[in-house]
Structures are given as C-alpha cells and as structure tokens.
C-alpha cells in the first residue's frame, strides 16, 4: 500500500472535483461523508508510506508525466515522500481529517455545505501537492493552489462584505510575497538549471551556486514565505482572515497553509545553510514577528483574532528555529503547533457555536461549567502553547530557544523568551475572560448554551491528547544521549547545523523557559482574576502604547496610506482618462467607423438579382482575363 503514496493528494483532489462538478446532486450528508472519507483514505495511505520510511527507507518517489518542457528546462509532476514530506503529510491529512469531521457538525446548518467541503478537499489536495512536490515548480502550483483555496474559504460567506474584503486582502497580500517567490524561483532555475529540490540544495552545498546568488534567491523565496506564513511585514492578512468559518481557520490558518513558508525553508535547508545572511534574515524576521505579534494579541477582544496573532507569533518561532540552524526544531514546533493551535481554534469554534456566533470575549465569561468538554480541551491547548513543562509546546519551543542561545543569538533568544511570557499571558487572559468570571453574554444567548455534538468534541479530545503528548517524540532533556526521536528521524533530510548547549546551560535555559511560562500565567491571573480593573488602569496610564497595540502598530494604516490609497487613486485616474477616453474612445470610434462603412457599402446592395449577376459576370470576365493573359 505504501507504493500508492502518490494517491495521497489525488484522492482528496478527485473528491473535490466530483463535489464541484456534481455539487447540486449531492445531499448534505453525502457531500460531508465523501469529503471526510477522501481525507481519511489519504491519511491511511500517508500513514502506510510513513511506516515504510520508519522501517528505514529513505524516500518513496513517483514521477508522473512531464508537464512543462521548454528548451533544456523540464518540470514534471514528480512526487517524493521523504521524511520531511512524511511528517508534513501526516500533519496535513491527520489534522485535516479531524477538521473535516468537526466541520460536518459545525457547518451542518450552513446554506452551501457541498461548496464548503469541495473547497476543503481542494485545499487538502493542493496542500499535499505542495508538500509532496519534489520539484519547486510543482510546489509553486500547490503554493498558489492553497492560496486560492484560502481566498475561497475566507470569503466563504461572501455575502458578508467583511468576509469578501478579507478574502481579497489575503489574496492580494499573498500576491506580493508570491511575486518575490516567483522571481527567486526564476533565479534558481536560471542559475541551477534544474527545478528539483535535490539539485537546488546540492548546487548550494557544493558551491556551484555563488554565495551572493544563493542569498538573493533565498531572501526572495523567504519573502514569499513571509507572505504565506503571515510574517512581518506581510502579516496583515491573517487577522482579517478570521472572517472565514472557524474550522477553516483551524486547518488553513493555523495548522497547515500558513506553515507552508516554514516548510519551504526546511525543504531548501541546503540553500539557506549556504547563505548565513539569508539565515540571519529568517531568524530576525521570526524573532521580531514572534514578539511583536504576541504583544498585539494582548489587546484583542475577538477570540479568533487573539488566536490569529498567536499563530503569527508561533510561526515566528518556527522561523527562528530554521534561521539558527535548528531546522528540525522548527519543523517540530510546526508539528506540535499544528496540534495545539488547531485544538485551540476548534475549541474556540465550539465556544462560538455554543454562544450562537458570539466571538467577542467581552460578552463571554463563566463558560467553564457550561462546556464541560470544551473547557478542559481548551485548557490543554492553552497550557501547551504557553510552554508549561511536559506538554508539547514546552519541548518544541524549548528546542528552538535552546538552539538560538547555543548559536550565540542572544538577542533573538531574548525576544523569543519575551514572546513566551506574552504568549502565556494572552492565552490565559483568553482563558479567564472566556471561561471564568461572571457571564457577560446577552441573556437570551445565555439560555441556549450547550456542549457541542460528538462530531465536534471527539476531534477536540483527540487533538487535546496529541497536544499534550506529541512533544515526547522530541524529548532530549536527558543530558548526553541524544534521545531526540523526531530530530534523528529527520536527520538525513534536515542535517543539524546548530550546536547543543552544555548540559548545565541547558538546564538553566529550561528553567528560564518554565519560569517565563509561569510568569505569563501568573500575570494573567493577577490582571484578569485577582484585580480585573488593572488592565483598564494600565491602558489609561499608557494610552499611546495601548493605542499602538490596538491599531496593530498602524501597519494597516500605513499600507493604506502608502500603497492602497495611491493605488486606488491611480486606478481611478487611469479609469477616467485611459479607460473611458482612450480605450472606450478607440472602441466607440472603430464601431462608428464600421457603422459608417456598413452604411456606405449597403448602397451596393440594391436587392436586385440582376445587379448581383452583373457583379458575378464582371468577376468571371476579370478572372478569365487574368487566366488568359
């Protein structure tokens, strides 16, 4: 069965195609079942192939036909299931399956469930193409495909203007990154002459690609990654993307698509390793994003927007890992993050569902007893992301920060540690506001509060277990013997370049991480349980800082002033002057000319048979004359 790994993307793809072609003929139930079934089949196939790799095989490969052949350049549908792709494929299909199952209940009352499941399947298809591509051009196909599906799913409720606008914003911001990606891709194609990842990494490693060009290509590709993974300065689309259905946020905007940038950097680890400058850029962008986005999450009142900023911040951690040479640690955090963040989103979705669509935390509170399954699941996720010892987030975040410290990147380490405090703080602010304290919801909404049906709670439980224990595969706190199962599994694909710190330092670092997590939780307890008036007083004390955070550092306002408004103005000018006058003028002019010519020529059409025959005769005489002369 492992031979069939190339069906992993194709099964959801085929399901999406069927759902899109025959959408009207599907009943709600059939569409949901088919979509879930397709992703589950895909998961089983991926698991079988994974088992084969775990048995020692390096990679499974399958070359489907060549689809671009231009001169000496060829790109083929070549899929490779190596260890990196295996981890990612399991995450995508595993979390994907749970989200699909969850969606059957969450979207049960929606108007267009078939369209929803078609897009979700299509997303899974493109994401798996992105993951399994062994060729950067094919990966770009998946890359653009997930972007398209992201747009379609953010704007799924397109009759809400905010959702349609958010979808558009995500698409346009991603275009900026993708343009850079494309330029970087072309640099690599012209310089390396091949589009396969093996060739690119190989050329970078053995020096055929000069350091300057490697840096250029790596930074351009990383610019693409910042777009997809919502890193500063292209992070602005992700908070708005929360207009989409919550399961979509869990799958696309937490677990899978937004981490595609990290995956890209992992895939091209040879290229990034060849360019210390590009690696430094990756690490710094990640560190700044991790801290800045965590600070923004402090002041959000929408439960999903808090999680969105949290996602941006956590992806920053992953980039720190990739940038300081601990690529495997970055991927490890990607995996654990996929579990606990999709858990948090799905649990938040359960809360929203229970409250009949309410997303504002100021109108929540006291839900701890009312949602007996959602609350503990959410709590596990919150503890995991905060880095409380022995839960998954603790191990993965610690692996990254330790590597940063060991590599001598002390400022980056400091930013990461600060972000860890902030993370614990905003997560428990969220927990206290939502689940503790007095109930602040509208009275009639309060009456209907109910725990979600089993299709929603079972995925929550599974994810909670994974979020709690999945960190153990990366356990390497035992000094001396490297017990890091995860890192060793990936060693042949992601060679470790960073150093491990000395054992005493490592223990100190672990204690620091634990302390920062507990500090954040403690502060949240103080602010939102002990003396709930404190946040408002603090905001009043530092109005400038507060407004800076509420407005997201004015990044959106700046983009609006510098890019959007001049663009709209310019487009308006072009429309009025070029479109209306020049193009429409030329069009109307040529139409008028054709009309005039038609009127003139219609005089020839006398309607008399004899006149037509005369023209015919004239033609015959001329023709015969030409033949004879």
């Amino acid at each position, binding site marked *: 069965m492992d031979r069939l790994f190339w069906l992993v993307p194709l099964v959801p793809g085929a399901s999406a195609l069927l759902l899109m072609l025959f959408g009207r003929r599907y009943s709600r139930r059939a569409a949901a079942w088919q979509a879930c079934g397709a992703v589950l089949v895909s998961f089983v196939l991926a698991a079988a192939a994974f088992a084969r790799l775990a048995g020692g095989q390096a990679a499974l490969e399958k070359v489907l036909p060549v689809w671009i052949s231009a001169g000496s350049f060829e790109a083929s549908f070549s899929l490779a299931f190596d260890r990196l792709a295996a981890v990612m494929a399991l995450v995508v299909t595993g979390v994907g399956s749970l989200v699909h199952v969850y969606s059957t209940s969450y979207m049960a009352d929606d108007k267009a469930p078939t369209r929803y499941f078609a897009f979700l399947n299509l997303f899974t298809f493109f994401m798996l193409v992105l993951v399994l591509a062994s060729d950067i051009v094919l990966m770009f196909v998946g890359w653009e495909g997930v972007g398209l599906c992201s747009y379609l799913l953010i704007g799924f409720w397109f009759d809400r203007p905010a959702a349609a606008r958010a979808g558009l914003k995500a698409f346009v911001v991603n275009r900026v990154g993708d343009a850079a990606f494309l330029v970087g891709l072309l640099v690599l194609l012209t310089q390396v002459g091949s589009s396969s990842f093996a060739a690119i990494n190989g050329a970078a490693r053995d020096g055929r690609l000069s350091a300057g060009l490697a840096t250029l290509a790596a930074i351009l590709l990383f610019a693409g990654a910042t777009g997809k993974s919502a890193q500063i300065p292209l992070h602005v689309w992700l908070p708005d993307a929360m207009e989409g259905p919550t399961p979509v946020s869990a799958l696309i905007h937490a677990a899978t698509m937004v981490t595609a940038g990290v995956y890209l950097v992992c895939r091209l680890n040879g290229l990034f390793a060849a360019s210390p400058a590009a690696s430094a850029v990756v690490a710094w962008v990640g560190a700044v994003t991790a801290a800045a986005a965590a600070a923004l999450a402090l002041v959000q009142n929408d439960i999903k927007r808090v999680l969105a900023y949290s996602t941006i911040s956590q992806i920053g951690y992953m980039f720190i890992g990739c940038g300081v040479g601990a690529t495997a640690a970055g991927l490890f955090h990607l995996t654990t993050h996929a579990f606990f963040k999709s858990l948090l989103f799905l649990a938040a979705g359960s809360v929203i569902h229970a409250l009949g669509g309410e997303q504002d935390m100021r109108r929540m509170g006291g839900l701890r007893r009312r949602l007996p399954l959602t609350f503990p699941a959410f709590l596990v996720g919150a503890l995991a992301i905060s880095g409380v010892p022995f839960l998954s987030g603790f191990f993965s975040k610690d692996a990254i920060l330790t590597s940063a410290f060991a590599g001598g990147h002390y400022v980056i380490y400091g930013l990461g540690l600060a972000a860890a405090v902030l993370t614990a703080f905003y997560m428990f602010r969220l927990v206290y506001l939502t689940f503790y304290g007095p109930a602040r919801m509208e009275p009639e909404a309060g009456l209907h509060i109910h725990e979600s049906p089993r299709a929603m709670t079972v995925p929550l439980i599974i994810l909670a277990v994974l979020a709690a224990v999945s960190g153990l595969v990366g356990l390497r706190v035992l000094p001396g013997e490297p017990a890091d199962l995860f890192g060793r599994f990936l060693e042949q694909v992601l060679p470790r370049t960073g150093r491990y710190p000395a054992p005493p330092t490592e223990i100190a670092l672990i204690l620091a991480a634990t302390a920062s997590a507990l500090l954040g939780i403690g502060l949240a307890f103080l602010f939102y349980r002990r003396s709930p008036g404190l946040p408002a007083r603090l905001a009043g004390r530092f109005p400038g800082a507060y407004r800076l955070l509420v407005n997201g550092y004015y990044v959106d306002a700046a983009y609006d002033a510098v890019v959007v408004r001049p663009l709209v103005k310019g487009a308006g000018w072009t429309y009025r002057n070029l479109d209306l006058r020049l193009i429409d003028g030329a069009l109307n002019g040529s139409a008028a000319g054709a009309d005039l010519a038609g009127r003139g020529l219609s005089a020839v059409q006398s309607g008399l048979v*004899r006149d037509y025959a*005369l023209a015919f*005769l004239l033609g*015959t*005489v001329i023709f015969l004359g030409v*033949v*004879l002369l």
Partner: protein
Amino acid sequence: MTLAVFVVLSAVCVAAVAAMILSRNPADNALFLVVAFAALGGLFGLLDSPFAAVAQVLVYAGAIMVLFLFAVMMFDLRRLEPRSRKRVRLGLASALAALLLAELALAGIRISGLAGPAWRSAEARDMARLGRLLFTDYLYPLEISALLLMAAIAGALALAGRKDAG
C-alpha cells in the same frame, strides 16, 4: 455531310436561343428552348456521344423543359410583361458579355492549338465502357447525385407542397 449536319444543327440552336431572347412570352420561350436542347442533343451525337445525346433529349428537352412549361402555366402571363428597361445596366451587361465571348474564343483557340483533339472518338461510342466507368471511377458521384435528386424531390415537396404557403 457531317459538316452540313453541324451547320444546320448549330444554326437551329443559336436561332432558338436568340428567339427566346426576343420573345416575350414565357411559354414560347420554353418551347424555343426545347428546340434548342433537341438540336444540342443532335450535336452531342455528332460528337460520338450517343449516351449524352439521349440523356439530353430525354431529360433536358423532355423532362426538365416540360417542368418549366407546367410552371409557366401556373402564372398569370400578362403580368410578366416588362414595364421598363434600365438601359445602363443592359449596356454594361452587353459589353461584358461581348468581352466574355472574346475571352472564350481566345481560350478555345489556345486549347485546340495546344491539344488539337481529334473530334472523332470510337471509345466514346462504347456504351459498355461508359457503364463500367460510371460504376467504378464515378461510383461515388453517381450515388451522390442519386441522393441529390432524392433530396431535391423532398425539398420541392416541402417548399411548394405546403397548403399554408399562400
């Protein structure tokens, strides 16, 4: 002898067509054409083409022109008198027709000068040969013309046979 036959037949033929041009009665015109086509059939015979001659007389002079005569009888003949003549068009047409005649003559001289075909042909009189030809080399055209005639019958019925057409 053959020369005399040729001269007489061609004279009859040209005269009949000329008479058709000058006459104003469509019924007379049709009869003139019968004469012209019959004479043409004789000329075909003179060219050693007995099959073409027979087909000409039976189908053209016989069947087709009778069809024309039937059609003529359906119309009010007096209404077909010409009312006015457009001299300019007629003059232009005559000039072009003269030019065409000159060109055709020139073409004829060139062709006969090049090939100089003997006008006698024993093979052309061989009916069995023609039959074989029709059912071998010309099989597809033959079948297609059969289909065409069939379609023409159906088309004519559909066009003229409608009761509501008036």
